[in-house]
C-alpha cells in the first residue's frame, strides 16, 4: 500500500510539473495492460523504493514511428521503451537508439557473467532483453478437447469452427508450414524459397474462410471467451492471465510455438539517459526478472532467473511450466528469425495484404 502511494505521488508530481524535468524522473514506455502491470510490480516499484527516483509509465502500440518522429525532431520525451526484436535491431541500424554497452550489466545471481547468463541473442548493440514471449495457439477446453498439435489448428474437419489469427504475415506463415508438417528447424529455410512461401499461403488459404483476424494482444482471449472462435493464435501470457487470473478454461498448446524477445531500448537523445540506463540495469538483474514471471507468464531473459521463478501472484499456480522456455514446451519450438523478416517483410506484407483482399 505504501509503495502505491509513492507511485501515485510520483505520478501526480509528474503530471503537475510535466514541463520541468527533474534529473531523476524517467518516462518508461511499454505495451500496457497486464504486461505493463507486471513490469510496474517487478521493476518500477522496487526501483522507486530503492533509489527514490520517479517513473512515469506510458502505454504505446509498438512500432518505431513515434521514436523516429521524436528523434528526427530532436524532441525526445521517452527515456526507455519496451520494443519487439525486429524494431530493436532496425532502430539500432537506423541510428534511432542509443548503443548499450553490455559490459555494464551485472553478473547473474549465481555469478555467471552477464553475456553468458542472458539467453543467446538477448543482448544486441542497442537493446537488452527482459523477457521471452511466444506466439502459441490456444483453445477453450470446455468446448474443444483432444488437440494434439499445430496440425489440428489447420484441420477444419476434425475441429470445425472459426480460427483466430493475427492480421499480419509474421508468425502465421511459420505456423502454416509447421501445421503442414515442416519441422521447426527447417521453417525459415523453406520460407526463403518461393515454393515455401507458396506452400505457407496455400495452407493459410485452406482455412481462410474460417478465420477471424485480430490485431491487438487483448483480443484473442476475448474471442475465445465470446465463443467467436474455437481456436486462436495468441501471446502466451495473455492466455495464461485469462486462465489463471480470471479462471477461464483456456489451454495453451505449445506445439509449434514461436519464441521472441521483448527488449529495453533507449531512444537516441533521451532526456534522462543516465537514469534510464540505471533503471535498465536494475530491471534486468536476476531477481527482478524472476519476480516479473510471477505476474505474467513470460520467461526471464536470464538463465539464472529460471530457478527463482516461483508462484503466480494468486499464490498457488506454479509458474515454471507456463514459461515458453520450460523444457517441456520446447519440443517443437521455433525462434523468430529477425533477419528473415527484416529482409522479406516488404514483399511478404504486400503479398499477405493482396491475399487477404482477394
Amino acid at each position: 500500500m505504501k509503495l502505491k502511494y509513492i507511485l501515485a505521488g510520483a505520478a501526480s508530481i509528474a503530471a503537475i510539473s510535466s514541463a520541468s524535468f527533474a534529473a531523476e524522473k524517467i518516462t518508461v514506455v511499454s505495451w500496457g495492460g497486464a504486461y505493463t502491470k507486471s513490469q510496474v510490480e517487478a521493476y518500477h516499484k522496487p526501483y522507486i523504493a530503492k533509489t527514490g527516483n520517479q517513473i512515469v509509465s506510458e502505454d504505446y502500440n509498438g512500432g518505431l514511428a513515434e521514436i523516429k518522429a521524436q528523434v528526427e525532431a530532436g524532441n525526445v520525451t521517452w527515456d526507455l521503451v519496451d520494443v519487439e526484436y525486429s524494431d530493436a535491431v532496425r532502430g539500432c541500424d537506423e541510428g534511432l537508439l542509443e548503443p548499450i554497452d553490455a559490459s555494464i550489466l551485472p553478473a547473474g545471481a549465481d555469478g555467471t557473467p552477464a553475456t553468458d547468463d542472458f539467453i543467446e541473442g538477448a543482448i544486441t548493440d542497442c537493446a537488452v532483453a527482459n523477457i521471452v514471449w511466444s506466439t502459441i495457439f490456444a483453445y477453450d477446453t470446455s468446448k474443444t478437447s483432444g488437440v494434439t498439435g499445430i496440425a489440428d489448428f489447420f484441420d477444419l474437419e476434425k475441429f470445425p469452427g472459426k480460427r483466430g489469427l493475427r492480421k499480419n504475415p509474421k508468425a502465421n506463415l511459420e505456423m502454416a508450414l509447421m501445421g503442414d508438417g515442416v519441422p521447426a528447424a527447417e521453417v525459415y529455410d523453406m520460407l526463403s524459397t518461393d515454393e515455401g512461401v507458396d506452400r505457407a499461403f496455400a495452407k493459410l488459404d485452406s482455412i481462410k474462410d474460417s478465420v477471424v483476424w485480430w490485431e491487438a494482444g487483448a483480443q484473442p482471449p476475448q474471442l475465445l471467451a465470446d465463443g467467436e472462435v474455437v481456436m486462436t493464435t495468441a501471446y502466451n501470457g495473455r492466455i495464461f492471465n485469462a486462465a489463471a487470473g480470471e479462471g477461464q478454461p483456456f489451454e495453451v498448446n505449445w506445439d509449434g510455438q514461436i519464441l521472441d524477445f521483448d527488449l529495453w531500448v533507449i531512444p537516441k537523445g533521451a532526456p534522462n539517459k543516465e537514469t534510464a540506463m540505471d533503471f535498465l540495469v536494475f530491471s534486468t538483474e536476476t531477481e527482478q526478472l524472476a519476480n516479473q514471471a510471477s505476474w505474467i507468464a513470460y520467461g526471464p531473459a536470464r538463465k539464472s532467473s529460471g530457478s527463482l521463478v516461483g508462484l503466480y501472484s494468486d499464490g498457488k499456480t506454479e509458474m515454471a511450466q507456463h514459461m515458453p522456455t520450460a523444457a517441456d514446451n520446447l519440443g517443437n519450438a521455433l525462434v523468430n528469425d529477425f533477419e528473415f523478416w527484416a529482409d522479406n517483410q516488404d514483399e511478404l506484407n504486400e503479398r499477405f495484404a493482396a491475399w487477404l483482399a482477394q
Partner: protein
Amino acid sequence: MSDVSPTGPMLAADGTPLKKKLAQALFLSRVRAFGLVAPLLLFILASFIVPIMTLLWQGVHNNTYEKYMPQSTAVLAEWDAVSAPTEEMYAALVADLVTARETRDIGKVATRVNREKSGTRSLFTSSARSAAKMETPFREALIDKDEDWADIEVWQAMKIASLSLTPAFYAAAVDYTYNADGSFEPAEENRQIYVFLFLKTFAVSLAVTVCCFLLGYPVAYLLSTLPMRTSNLLMILVLLPFWTSLLVRTTAWIAMLQSQGVLNDIFVTIGLTSDDQRFSLIYNMTGTIIAMTHILLPFMILPLYSVMRGISPSYVRAAKSLGATNWTAFWRVYFPATIPGIGAGALLVFILSIGYYITPALVGGQDGQLISNFIADHMQKTLNWSLAAALGGLLLASVLILYWIYDKIVGIDNMKLG
C-alpha cells in the same frame, strides 16, 4: 472652379485626379480586405498546405541512398545497368559502407534498397560490419563476404535507389515496378494490391453515396413539406447524429450489430434465426456500409433539405392541374428541381467517404482495409513514407478533382451547416 479646363480630369479635394484617387481608395480597400484574410491564409499555408506539400514531395523524392552513399551514387549514375559492375563501383561501395556504418546510417540505406529488392537488407548490414577490414580488390572481397554481390539485380536495385528524384513510388502505388533501365512493368501478380484497393475504395464510397441518397431523399422531402415547427423538431433527429462523436456512433453500431448484440438478439427472439446461427453483420462489408451511411447521412439530408425548401409547392400543383399524374408531376417537375441538392449532397458524401479511415478500420474487419488504412500503415508501421506519400498523392488528386467539380456545380460559398 473656373480655372479648371473643361477637358481636364476631374480632381478630388486635394487636387489629385479623381480617377487616380478612386483607384487608390479601391486599392486600399482591397488591401484592407486582404489584410483581414491574410492571417488565416498564412496560418493554413503554414500548418496545413506546407505539411501536405512536403509529404507529397517525398512521393517523388527520396534521397536516403544519395545522402548516405555519395561515392557509390556518383559511380552508379554512370553505369548503364546492364554491363557487369566494375571494380570502381565495388570500391566506392565499400568506402560508403564504411562511413555509413560509422555514422550508424547503414540501416536506412539497407531499408531503402530492400524496398527495391527483397532480401538485400541483411546483405548491406552484414557487409557493412566487415567493410572496414576489406582490402583491394574490393570486388573479390565483397563477393567473398556474400556471393549476392555478384548478382546484377542487386546492383540494379541500388541504381534505382540511388536516383533521388524517382517515379518508383508512384509506379508502386499503381502496382507497377520501375526498372533500372527506366522502363516500367506490372508488379508480380500476387503482390498487386493498390489498384484493387483504389477501386474498392471508390466502390464502397459509391455504395455509401447511393444508400445515403435513397435514405436521405424521402426524409428531406418530408422535412421540407411539413410545417416549420414540426420540421424543426424532426430536424433535431438529423442534427443530433451530426453533432455526435464519430467514435460514439461507431461504438453504437458495434453494440447494435455484433453477433451478441442488440439486433441479433432481437432476430433470435422473434425467431428469424437460431441462437447458434446469428448473422454476421459487422466486421465485414455490410457493417462498414451501414455505419458509414449512418455517419454521412446528415451530409446528404442538409443540402437536399435547403434546396427542397426553396421549391414552391405551386409548381407541382400547376403540373397536376394541367393533368399530370402524381408520378409525372414528381418525376418531370419536382425531381429535376432538386438535382442541385442531390449533386451537392452526393459529392459531399462521396468526397468524405473516399478518405474514410476510422470507421472501416474499426468495423470493417478483413474487408475494412481501404486505401486510407494502407496510407496510415505505411506511415506508422512499415515506415515506408515515400510509398504512403505516393498513395496519398493519388487519393488527394481524385478528391481535388471532385472538389473542383463541387465548386463548379455548387460553389463552395453555398456550403451550409445545419
